[in-house]
C-alpha cells in the first residue's frame, strides 16, 4: 500500500484519517447540544444562532479559512492565548486542519441531528419527566437513545465532509507534505506536477473507498439501531 501510494500519498491518507476522526469526535457533542437547543428551545436570537451555525456552509471555504487564521493564528487573540496557556498551536499544524474540518462539517452535523430530535415525540419526554426523571436524565435515557441513528448519520456526514475539506484547510494551515497536506490537497498537488496523474488517481480511489466504507458501516449500524428503536 505504501509503495503503491508513495510516501507522500500514504502520509496524506493517514493525516486525513486522523484529522477527520478528531474533527468528527470534537464536533459531535457540540453539534448534539446545539441541535437540541435549536429543536427544543424557543428564545430570542434563535435565528441568529442558527445563522452563525450555518455560516460555514454558505460562505466560500477560503473565507472561513481566512477567518480562522485571523482568530486562531499565532499572533491572533485566541491563537496566542491557546499557545500561552495550553501550548497548543493550530496554525500550520495538523491540529489546525482538524479545527478547519470540524468548523466546515459542523453545520451538516447539526442539521442531521436536529432532524432526528425533531422526529422524537416530545410526549415521550413529558412522560419521562412525569415518572420522576430530571431534564438531563430525560435526555440521556429517552432522547439520546432515540436519536442514535441520527447521530451516526451525522458522524458519517461529518467525517466525509472532513475527508474532503480543501479550501478552508489550505487557507488556514497550508499544505505542508507530511504535516498539513491532507488527501484533497495531495491530489491537487499531484495534479499540478507533470506526470502526477497516476498518483492522483490512486489517491482518488482511496478517497472513494474510504467514503463508501464509512457510508456502508453507518447504514449497517443505524439499521440495527432503528430496528431496536422501532420497538420490535
Amino acid at each position, binding site marked *: 500500500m505504501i509503495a503503491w501510494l508513495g510516501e507522500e500519498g500514504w502520509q496524506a491518507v493517514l493525516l486525513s484519517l486522523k484529522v477527520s476522526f478528531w474533527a468528527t469526535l470534537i464536533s459531535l457533542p457540540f453539534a448534539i447540544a446545539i441541535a437540541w437547543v435549536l429543536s427544543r428551545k424557543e428564545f430570542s436570537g434563535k435565528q441568529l444562532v442558527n445563522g452563525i451555525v450555518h455560516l460555514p456552509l454558505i460562505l466560500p471555504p477560503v473565507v472561513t479559512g481566512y477567518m480562522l487564521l485571523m482568530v486562531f493564528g499565532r499572533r491572533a487573540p485566541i491563537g496566542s492565548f491557546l499557545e500561552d496557556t495550553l501550548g497548543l498551536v493550530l496554525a500550520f499544524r495538523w491540529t489546525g486542519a482538524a479545527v478547519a474540518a470540524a468548523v466546515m462539517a459542523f453545520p451538516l452535523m447539526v442539521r442531521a441531528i436536529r432532524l432526528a430530535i425533531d422526529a422524537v415525540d416530545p*410526549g415521550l419526554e413529558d412522560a419521562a419527566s412525569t415518572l420522576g426523571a430530571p431534564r438531563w436524565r430525560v435526555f440521556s435515557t429517552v432522547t439520546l437513545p432515540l436519536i442514535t441513528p441520527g447521530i451516526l448519520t451525522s458522524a458519517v456526514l461529518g467525517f466525509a465532509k472532513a475527508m474532503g475539506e480543501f479550501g478552508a484547510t489550505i487557507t488556514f494551515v497550508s499544505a505542508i507534505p507530511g504535516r498539513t497536506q491532507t488527501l484533497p490537497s495531495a491530489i491537487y498537488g499531484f495534479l499540478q506536477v507533470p506526470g502526477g496523474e497516476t498518483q492522483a488517481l490512486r489517491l482518488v480511489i482511496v478517497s472513494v473507498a474510504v467514503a463508501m466504507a464509512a457510508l456502508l458501516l453507518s447504514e449497517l449500524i443505524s439499521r440495527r439501531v432503528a430496528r431496536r428503536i422501532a420497538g*420490535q
Partner: protein
Amino acid sequence: MTLSVSLRHTLDRFELDVTFNAPDGVTALFGRSGAGKTTVVNAVAGLMQPTKGRISVGDRVLFDSSKRISLPVHKRHLGYVFQDARLFPHMTVAQNLAYGAKVQRTKRDVAHEKRIIEMLGIGDLLSRRPGRLSGGEKQRVAIGRALLAAPELLLLDEPLAALDEARKAEILPFLERLRDHSGIPILYVSHSIAEVARLATTVVALHNGRVAQVGPTASVLSDPDSVPALGVREAGAVIRGKLVAHHDDGLSELQTCGGALFLPRVKGVEIDQVIRVRIRAHDVILSRTAPEGLSALNILHGRIVSLREGQGPGVMVRIACRDEHILARITRRSAQAMSLSEGDMIHAIVKSVSVAQGDVGG
C-alpha cells in the same frame, strides 16, 4: 389525601377558571372536547403553567402563583397515563415498568411490582417491546409504569379513548380495582358518561372552561341541571343494584331501590355483589298505573321530585326512589297529557336490552 385545584388560565380567546377538590377515589373530569379537561390535568402535572392559581395534594403544594411556587414536573410525584400510552419504544415492557424507580433511584419493591404486574395481567409481556403490543396491552403497561413510579396522585387522560369496545371492557375492571385499592386520588379525564358512571366517585363537569357541576357521581348524573354539560342524548342517572340471580334465559336479576331490574347477563359479577347501572334518560318510559301486557320487564317505582323543561320539546323528569334517583326524558306533550307534577307516584319502564354492557359495572 385530597387534591385541591384552583386555577385560572387564558389561552388565546379561551378562558379557564376552575376550582374543585378531588378526594381519594376516582374524580372524573368530565366534559365535551374543548371544555378544558386536558389543560387542567397538564397544569396539575406541571406540563403547563397556569396564569394564576394553587394546586396541592394533601399539604404538599405543587403550584402557587401568589408564592411563586411551581414544582418541576419530575418532583411532583405523579403517575400520568396518557391517551396514547407513550411507552418508550426502545425499552422492553420490563424496562418501561422499572423506569420510574430507576430515575428516582428508589429501591425496587419486588413484591409490590409483582402484585401490580399480576393485577394488570402483563406478566407474559415483560420481555416484549412496545411495537409488538396491542392497544389494550400498551395501555395496561402504561398504567403499570405510572403506578410503579410510586405516585401520590394518579392522572388518567382518556386512557380508553383510543381503544375499541372490547379493549375497553378488558381494562375497565383494572381501573375499578385501582380505585378500590390504590388509596390515592385519581383524576380521570373522560368525555364518556358510561365510563364516568362506572368508575367515578366524584364528578367535576366542565363546560366552556368552567365547573358546571361538582359532587358525588350519582347526584351529579341525576341532576337535571347537569344536562347541558353532559349533553341531552347522554343524560342518565346511575342507580345501585344488588345482584340476586343469574337466570337460565340469559338475564341477570338485580335488586334496586325501585324494584327488580332484569339485565342481559352481567359478566364477572357474583351473587350479592352491588354494582352500578346507568339508565339513560331517553330509554325510560313513564306510566301512572302499573302497566300490564308490556314486553318491557323492568318497572321501577318512585316519586317525581322535579320536572324541568329544556329548550327543545323535552322535559327531564327526576324520580326519587329511596335515596337514589332516576332520570326520564319525555316530551312536553306527554307530560301535559299525563298532567305530571312534583310529588306524584310514577312507574318508570326500562327495556332490559337498552342497558349496554358498558353501563354496568362495579
